[in-house]
Structure formats: C-alpha cells, structure tokens
C-alpha cells in the first residue's frame, strides 16, 4: 500500500502539487486522471522518488521514503516497476535483453535462470516470438507489452504506468489495460496508472484520483465517477462527444 500525506512540490515560483493526500491499495489498479498540466506526471515522479516533495510524506507499506537511507531507497526502487509513456526501451538491446536487464542489474541469477524468467514474462504478455527483435522493429503495442514485461520481470511490489495507452488504437489499448489489471491481481501489486483515457477509467479504474491544478478534486471508483455531481469531474469526463451521448442515453433510460 502507498500512502500519500499532504505532499507539496514546486519548481521555482510554480507551485505544482498543493497538498495531495490519498492511499493506493495493494492488489488494486488505481488511476490518476486529470487534464494536461494538472500535476499528474509530477505526482507520479514524486511517487517514484524522482522528485522529492518539499512538504508531506509518501510511505510504501509503512516505510516513509524521505526517512530512508540511500541504500534503503535503492532497495525500495528495485521493488518498483515503471511503464513509461514512450515505453523507454533500451534501443541498443534486443527485446529479450531489455526484459532481462533488471535481473542482470539486481539479481545474482545465472544466465539460464534469467532467460527462463524473461521467457515466462514475455509469454505472459503474449510476446513469445519476439525475443531477438530490436525495439525499433516492434509496433507501438508490442513495445508497450515489452515495457510491461520489463517492469514486472523482477516481481515488483509497486507498478507505475505513465499514459500506457497513448498512441495506441482503442483495441490495443484495451488489451494493454486488461493486461496491467490482470498482472496487478496476479502479483498482488500496488498499481498506479496516470491517464486521461476515459476508456481505461471505465475498464480498470478500481480507484480513481482526479487532480486539478495540483489539488485532489475528487476520488472514487469507475462506478461512482459517472454518478458524481462534482462539476469539475463531469466537465472532464463528458468532454468527448462519445461520452456526452452515452450520458444522454443513460439519462433518457433512467427517465
């Protein structure tokens, strides 16, 4: 479980996060949503330990990050997996080498053990035939699946995903969403996804935190987000024509 208490983060005069508190539970897929510039990425980078908040605390299963020593921080980081918006695969390595990378860096496994584990996770993300391809030879959806495989290969406790669906067609996006959700339950991880894709919210949003101007404007689940009267949230949720029509139909059906 990740517990965030009143975190503030500024860059120069720009106050980006203005006191956010929330919790993300183990074994659940939590989504952080909000418009571009709402502070989602800074929030995620604070959770990853890449930015240190000026105020407030973030604790990982009871361990407060700012109170840890550098070795403990490094150990904690090795328990985190991250799926970047652009996949961030190492382009000088094959897909198999990319997936084996965290094992090579953080474990003392033999080459065959590493290979077995990498084979297993690549199979888990349906990429058993792509071992020797370079990332540049893989499609966007394949790259995302490799990034997920790399993120989970070392059995992390915490999985972070930054816009995992950006640049993907709706069908592939659903595949990626479901994959992350299934893996979260399978590995009992605390998963946090940054997104502004409402399809993901509908699909896997077991917990949703809505950010606006660096503040938590709302939190709930995929079931409650469509019933909320919070104007800030409804403005965002129903900004697309598709969702406007869905809502219209819902209201008509109800009446």
């Amino acid at each position, binding site marked *: 479980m990740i517990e965030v208490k009143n975190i503030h983060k500024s860059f120069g005069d720009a106050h980006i996060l203005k006191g956010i508190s929330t919790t993300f539970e183990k074994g659940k897929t939590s989504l952080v949503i909000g418009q571009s510039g709402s502070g989602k990425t800074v929030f995620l980078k604070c959770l990853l330990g*890449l930015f240190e908040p000026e105020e407030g605390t973030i604790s990982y299963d009871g361990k407060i990050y700012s109170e840890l020593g550098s070795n403990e921080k490094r*150990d904690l*980081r090795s328990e*985190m997996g991250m799926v970047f918006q652009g996949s*961030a695969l190492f382009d000088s390595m094959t897909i198999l080498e990319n997936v084996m990378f965290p094992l090579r860096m*953080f474990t003392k496994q033999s080459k065959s053990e590493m290979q077995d584990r990498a084979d297993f996770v690549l199979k888990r993300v349906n990429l058993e035939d792509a071992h020797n391809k370079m990332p540049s030879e893989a499609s966007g959806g394949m790259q995302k699946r490799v990034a997920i495989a790399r993120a989970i290969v070392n059995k992390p406790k915490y999985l972070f995903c930054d816009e995992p669906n950006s640049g993907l067609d709706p069908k592939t996006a659903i595949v990626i969403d479901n994959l992350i959700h299934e893996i979260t339950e399978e590995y009992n991880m605390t998963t946090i996804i940054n997104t502004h894709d409402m399809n993901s919210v509908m699909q896997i949003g077991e917990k949703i935190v809505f950010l606006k101007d660096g503040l938590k404007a709302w939190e709930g689940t995929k079931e409650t987000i469509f019933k909320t009267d919070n104007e800030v949230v409804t403005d965002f949720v129903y900004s697309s024509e598709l969702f406007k029509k869905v809502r219209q139909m819902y209201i008509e059906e109800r009446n």
Partner: protein
Amino acid sequence: MTYLNSIGAYFIMIKDMFRKPTKWSVMKILIFKDIDDLIIGSLGIVAFISFFVGGVVTIQTALNMTSPLFPKYLVGFATRQSIILEFAPTFISIIMAGKVGSFITSSIGTMRVTEQIDALEVMGINAINYLVFPKFIALMLYPFVISIAMFLGIIGGMVACIYGGYSTIDDYIIGIQLDFIPFHITYAFIKTFVFAFVIATIPSYHGYFMQGGALEVGKASTTAFVWTSVAIILLNYILTQLLLS
C-alpha cells in the same frame, strides 16, 4: 551565472561518475562496446587523415625551404616535430571531438529524450556511472589511436617526400631521428590523456543534461563540439606552457 551553474553541474557529474558503481559483469560489456564504438570505430578516419596530412606537412615544409643553405634532412625533422608535438595529439583530438563527441552527445541525448535515462534512474541505477564511466574508460585507450596517427603521419610524410622528389629517403630518415627528445613523446601523451578525458566528459554532460526533443539533440551535439574544442585548445595552451617552457 548560467556558465558557472553549468561548470558546477559538470564537476558534480564527474564526481557522480565514480559513485554507486554498476555491477562489474554489466559494466565490462559496456566498456567493450564503447571501445568498439569510440576507439576501433575511429581508426579508419584517423589513419586516413594522419597519412595525408603528414604528406601535406612534408610538402609545405619542403616548398618553404628554398634556400640551398638548408640541409634536405630538415624536411623530415620538421615533419616529425609538427606531427608529434601538435598534429597528432591536438589536431586529431579536434577531429575526435567532432566524430566521437557528437556520437556521445547524440546517443546519450536520445536516451534522455526517449526516457531511457529516466528508466535507469527509476530502477535505482546511477545513470551517470552507467553511461559515462564506460566511455571514460574506453577513451583511456585514446593514446593508442594517437600513436597510430603519429606513425602514419610520419610515413605519409616520407611517401610524399620521396614521390614528390623533395629529398631522399635517407635524408628523411636522418631528419626524423635528428635531435630526438623523448620527453616530447611524454608531453604528447600527457596531452592526449587530458584530451581523452575532455572528449569523454564534455559531450556526455551536454547529452545527459539536454532538455527537449530531437531538434535539441542536434543542437546539443553542436554545442558539445564547440565547447570540447574550446577546452582542448585552452588546455593545449596551458599544458604546453607548463610542460615545455
């Protein structure tokens, strides 16, 4: 103020290069890969340039020594001195700042743009040690490249001298042995080690701390080349003053 910040950040990067070392089994592979990319991959262009510039130095020296009072072996002497003292260590280093330096900046810069460096940092890896240290170690073999440049420059001069009819092979060989001071070789290699450090670190700094997209990677490569060249020229002056005067 910006320049002071950059200089400070550069020295902090150098300090970080030696902190939290990457696992040796991984580092070993990175070092060999960088030796291949930075050293072996540069031999062809260095050999080509050295041979022909050596020839040009010889021709120009011979053409400017028109007085019959000058002995013919001075052509070989002047060629040796020019190549060992300046051409091989400094001129080749400027070329390497362009070839190797822009490769380093663009490869690290592209990793920054595509979030690969963020991926390393998220995993708890010291990205500066992972990326810069192997390049620094690989470039410690740079004197090997400069030795080849010295040898081929002198050979190029000899070929030009003989085929141009400026002096005989015996005169040229007498010239390249005349008043040889071994410390000049030491001086050249001291410079080479310092320039190797500069070529490994300044382009790495510009790649690592770049911000923006693909266009900025190109700009960072150009900036890195300019500052690496400036540093080489200034250090060349300082080292020459310190070691030879």
